[in-house]
């Protein structure tokens, strides 16, 4: 067992499936010899060959469309989008075909595939490299959208995503690619999709987040504990479809909820979770639901990036407001 980073965990999970399932094939731009621009596929072409770890021409719609064709033949493609900001040419293929083929053929043709993309801000990247657009994908029936927050979860969820019989959009929070290391046993054990993880138990408020923001959220929870506020912290992990049972159960216990996300506020995953809590658990609430998010603005270029991103302080401010509500 070795301590590995989130990106190493992604690599290890893909390697495990390449090793154990001959139908798994990996492709994208620069994923071969170069091992991906973030090194997510480092060493995989050398080990599994050019036939199964394939450098493609530079065309995102083609990458996703190839996955559609290969998956329909029963292969299990893992397709990389180099950055989520470049996924849009592929959206046509993902929304119109990957998400729909099972339904349109009454189950005759299926789409077992993973579309991976690094996403999110905080690394001083060029324009179009920092957005959090997970809500666009979560709106599309037929897709699953999964976001790991730490190395062990990246390993287990990636295994589950590859083995899932339906298309999974796997978004990797690149800001935390190398921020922490976990001891992860490379034993092929997957984590469940469509399941939240309770990362901290508490009785006063439920903090709900996913991806990179889990780190700020957990830090905030520790600071709150020093103030005598015990926060329960939930990592949503699969942001579509959401495991609302776990969230509602927690809110029933704590009576308060705060959702923390990097994405813009309106029409977001946070909006959906808040609506579900209001619809199914409003009578358990002792205070209005709080939300800490990116602003409803264009993701700013990196000089203003820190102004945009939710911080531990912003989370603490929001939680104190909720706790003081009478």
């Amino acid at each position: 067992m070795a301590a590995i980073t989130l990106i190493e965990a992604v690599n290890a999970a893909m390697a495990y499936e390449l090793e154990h399932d001959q139908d798994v094939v990996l492709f994208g731009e620069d994923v071969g010899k170069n091992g991906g621009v973030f090194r997510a596929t480092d060493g995989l072409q050398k080990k599994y060959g050019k036939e199964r770890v394939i450098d493609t021409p530079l065309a995102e719609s083609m990458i996703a469309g190839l996955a559609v064709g290969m998956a329909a033949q029963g292969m299990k493609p893992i397709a990389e989008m180099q950055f989520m900001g470049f996924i849009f040419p592929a959206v046509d293929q993902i929304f119109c075909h990957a998400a729909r083929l099972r339904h349109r053929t009454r189950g005759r043709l299926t789409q077992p595939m993973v579309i991976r993309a690094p996403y999110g801000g905080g690394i001083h990247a060029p324009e179009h490299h920092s957005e959090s657009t997970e809500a666009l994908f979560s709106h599309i029936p037929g897709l699953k959208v999964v976001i790991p927050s730490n190395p062990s979860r990246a390993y287990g969820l990636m295994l589950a995503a590859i083995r899932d019989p339906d298309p999974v959009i796997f978004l990797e929070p690149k800001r935390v690619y190398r921020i922490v290391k976990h001891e992860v046993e490379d034993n092929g054990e997957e984590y469940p999709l469509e399941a939240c993880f309770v990362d901290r138990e508490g009785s006063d408020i439920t903090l709900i987040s996913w991806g990179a923001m889990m780190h700020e959220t957990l830090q905030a929870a520790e600071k709150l504990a020093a103030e005598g506020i015990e926060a329960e912290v939930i990592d949503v992990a699969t942001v579509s479809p959401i495991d609302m049972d776990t969230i509602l159960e927690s809110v029933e216990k704590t009576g308060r909820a705060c959702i923390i996300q990097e994405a813009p506020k309106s029409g977001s995953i946070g909006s959906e979770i808040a609506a579900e809590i209001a619809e199914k658990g409003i009578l358990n609430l002792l205070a209005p639901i709080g939300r800490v998010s990116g602003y409803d603005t264009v993701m700013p270029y990196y000089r203003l990036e820190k102004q945009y991103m939710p911080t531990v302080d912003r989370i603490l401010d929001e939680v104190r407001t909720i706790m003081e509500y009478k």
Partner: protein
Amino acid sequence: MTTTTVASFEIQYHQYLDANGKPTKDIPEFAKDMNTMRELYRDMYKLRVFDAKAYALQRTGKMGTYPASLGQEAIGIGYGDAMVKEDVLIPYYRSTGGLLKHGVTMEEILLYWGGDEAGANYSVAKEDFPICVPIANQIIHASGVAKAIQMRKQKRAVVTEIGEGGTSEGDFYEGVNVAGIWNLGVVFFINNNQWAISVPTDIQTACETYAQKAIAAGVEGIQVDGNDIVAVREVSNYALEKARNGGGPTVIEAITYRLCDHTTADDASRYDDPKVKEQAWKDEPLVRLRKYLEKNKSWSDKDEEAMKEEVAKEVDAAVKAYEAAPKPTPELMFDHLYAELPELTKPQREAAIKRGAK
């Protein structure tokens, strides 16, 4: 300035029968077998009758929007005849001929255009895609299917079809390009019927041919008289054999004319030139093949009458089966969305069932 030519290209045009059914060069062996040619004539005729019936069903409110293949029958019937069961078809909305030849039933096609996904749950052509509605996406699917076939070392060809307007989309180039790089066994058919709804070909491209779009991807491009079933069948046979045996992809531009509206929702009289259309009727594929058969003493008015009667019965039976097909029930919206319906969606399914079919 001294220069060196570093690349050049030629596009070959293939035709065996002229508009009068007269051979323009040596006829390929298969076309000397009059039973084969009679079958192809019957297949094209059946497609024409089926299209007319589908139009009538739409006009009487018994079916939704439908795109016919009038005047373009030789393309789908031609490549479809060259396909074998193990090959895979990635059709678009005007691939009815190819679908019928590859084992998709008339009832399934009617069910599809009648608004029921059951029509894409093909009973015979299990690996064929449902028709692609968004333009040109299917070109890449064909390359993806062919990549899987190549990785599994199978000898199967993939055939896909697109309108000439669709070649203006990026997906067309992306799909053909990767097929060229990876030497994939795909046959890309371009149905150049001169119209993308109302837009003529000179608004789609400055190229002299659509076949030459293959050249930019390093792929063989050929042009064929799309109204000459002998030529379509022959180039299909060549390209499919090449695809099955590791010879790589081929782009085939079939030149024809759309004698019908784009779909039942269109009115071509708003933009079509009646004189051009009148001329196109003289070039259409059925009359040409009939003349060829007659020249070879292999067709008579009696044969024509017998065929008409048989085909009418066949098509009517399909329409009856379509009309008798059970209506889809509300749970079908949910049951094939995922392998397993998400917990969050289950109450919606129950509610839809409770509300019941209307």
